[in-house]
């Protein structure tokens, strides 16, 4: 596995005013992200997500620790790294009086593009993000959704190998947020682009990210795939069995994969490690005990539960 990002012991604090103590925003954060992955950094407001992503994006220097992105040191090799990465953030902000096309050309030139190569790249991005009909519209006249699409288009102007997305769908309506997510997934699948994104939206992280990390008050609390985290935290899927003639007598705790069980009237609530795998043997055991199941309700563990478990 190739590693796109390695951060070790990253710490950052900011001055809060004259004669005020510095505020520690990141404490000794370590992180590794594999090439080609979509990695999510989750956490509440003020957790340090934007600070962390900004350090990796060369916009901020850490007080301590080292980070290498695409094999380049984020402080010493910042100039070389900037050619190979890009950033899109929530609440897209660009020069108000420039049109969509002019804004893209401006950023294209900043990455050294010019002439036909610039025109071709801008044309390609206008098509990709369906911005062609709005190419001559000034930024201030665009809707929020179009502004965000322009932000993503700008982030791809230099054909980056790694993209930082800071709350990419924040403030968008659900439909537009869905489009943007599809676009992010498509980019990752078609081009193998590594994406590091921060989000509040746990559903978004579930949909997009192969792996996530949780930040709270500047500390990395946990990281891993959903399955890893579920296992590590001992969280289980919820399985409820509803019976017609009462709950059959059975030692539920001894059934395979059962973490917790609770019997209530005609219902048994089970928490199992992997519901899909365990459902068949559980139903077989219940059937043997002459239980007549009339309904099965399954709720897989989701990121909200994991998030709650980790951050509280």
């Amino acid at each position, binding site marked *: 596995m190739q590693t796109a990002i390695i951060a070790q012991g990253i710490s950052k604090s*900011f*001055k809060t005013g004259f004669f005020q103590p510095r505020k520690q925003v990141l404490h000794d954060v370590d992180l590794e992200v594999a090439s080609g992955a979509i990695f999510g950094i989750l956490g509440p407001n003020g957790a340090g997500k*934007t*600070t962390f992503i*900004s350090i990796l*994006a*060369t*916009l*901020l*220097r850490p007080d301590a620790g080292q980070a290498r992105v695409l094999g380049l040191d984020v402080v010493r090799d910042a*100039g*070389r790294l*900037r*050619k190979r*990465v*890009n*950033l899109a*953030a929530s609440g897209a*902000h*660009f*020069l*108000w*009086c*420039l049109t969509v096309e*002019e804004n893209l*050309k*401006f*950023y294209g*030139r*900043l*990455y*050294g*593009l*010019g002439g036909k190569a*610039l025109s071709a790249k801008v044309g390609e991005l206008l098509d990709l993000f369906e911005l062609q009909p709005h190419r001559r519209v000034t930024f201030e006249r665009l809707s929020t959704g179009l502004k965000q699409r322009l932000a993503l288009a*700008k982030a791809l102007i*230099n054909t980056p190998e790694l993209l930082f997305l800071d709350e990419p769908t924040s403030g968008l309506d659900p439909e537009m947020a869905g489009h943007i997510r599809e676009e992010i997934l498509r980019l990752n699948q078609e081009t193998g682009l590594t994406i590091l994104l921060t989000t509040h939206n746990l559903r978004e992280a579930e949909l997009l990210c192969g792996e996530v990390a949780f930040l709270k008050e500047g500390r990395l609390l946990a990281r891993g795939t959903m399955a890893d985290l579920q296992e590590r935290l001992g969280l289980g899927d919820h399985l409820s069995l509803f019976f017609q003639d009462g709950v059959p007598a059975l030692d539920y705790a001894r059934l395979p994969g059962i973490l917790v069980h609770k019997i209530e009237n005609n219902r048994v609530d089970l928490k199992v490690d992997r519901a899909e795998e365990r459902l068949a043997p559980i139903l077989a055991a219940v059937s043997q005990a002459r239980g007549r199941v009339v309904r099965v309700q399954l709720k897989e563990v989701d990121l909200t539960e994991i998030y709650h478990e980790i951050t509280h």
Partner: protein
Amino acid sequence: MRLPTDFNKILAFAARSALVNRRNIFAVFEMLFWPAIGIFSVGLLTRFLNLDAETVTFILIGAVSMNTIQIAQLDLSYALLYSVWAKSLKHEFMAPVRLTHILVGAGAVGLVRGLLVFVVMGFFSMWLFNMDLSRPGAGGLLIFLTGMFLNAAVIGASVLALVLRFGQRAEVAAWAFSYLMLLLCGLYYPVSVLPAWIGKLAQIIPLTYFLEYYRHFYGFSLNYPHPLLYGFSLSVVYLCVCYALVHYTLKSALHRGTLLRLSE
């Protein structure tokens, strides 16, 4: 240095400045209305005072210079202010650009706009108030213009440093710096009339020497020997100091999180 790549980065800032100016009606006011008001009011005052031709030229050179420098420095001063106003500063510095690209790109547009103001105001001064701009010859004029644009670059670069440190609050400095400098350098009067301690300050302003140089073609005596040597030397020193200052404030902004704060 890869020339085509660097050229495109410079062009980015130049094209952006040019587009903003073209779309902004107030840019027309900046370039034509206010300078014209300045020239007319000063010119009419000289007529009312019934001054001789040399003195009229002396004063009008000051008025034309003031407007030229004021406009020429604005594009450089605004180069980062546009990004601060648009909250896009982090995107600009996320790209692999150097300060030179910003300074040269925005400075080039300032130079063109300043030149335009000089030509238009010079034309008005000659046409309406019989000012003779051509007496120093093409060489003298070119040297004087170069000196003015170097001064404008020094002001613009200082404002860039302030923007990177204080953000939008530095906007006022874009105008204040040039007015202060113009007050001290003997714009409408010989520096010899300044109180002694202000005269000392005038000696550290390069424009003082360039104005002296240009005006000596009209029969006014030089207060300082070798004005061009002092003028150019001071300009180069200040430009280097300003470049270092902008470089330092950018580095400091990367530590303090200013780029992020100014993009929120």
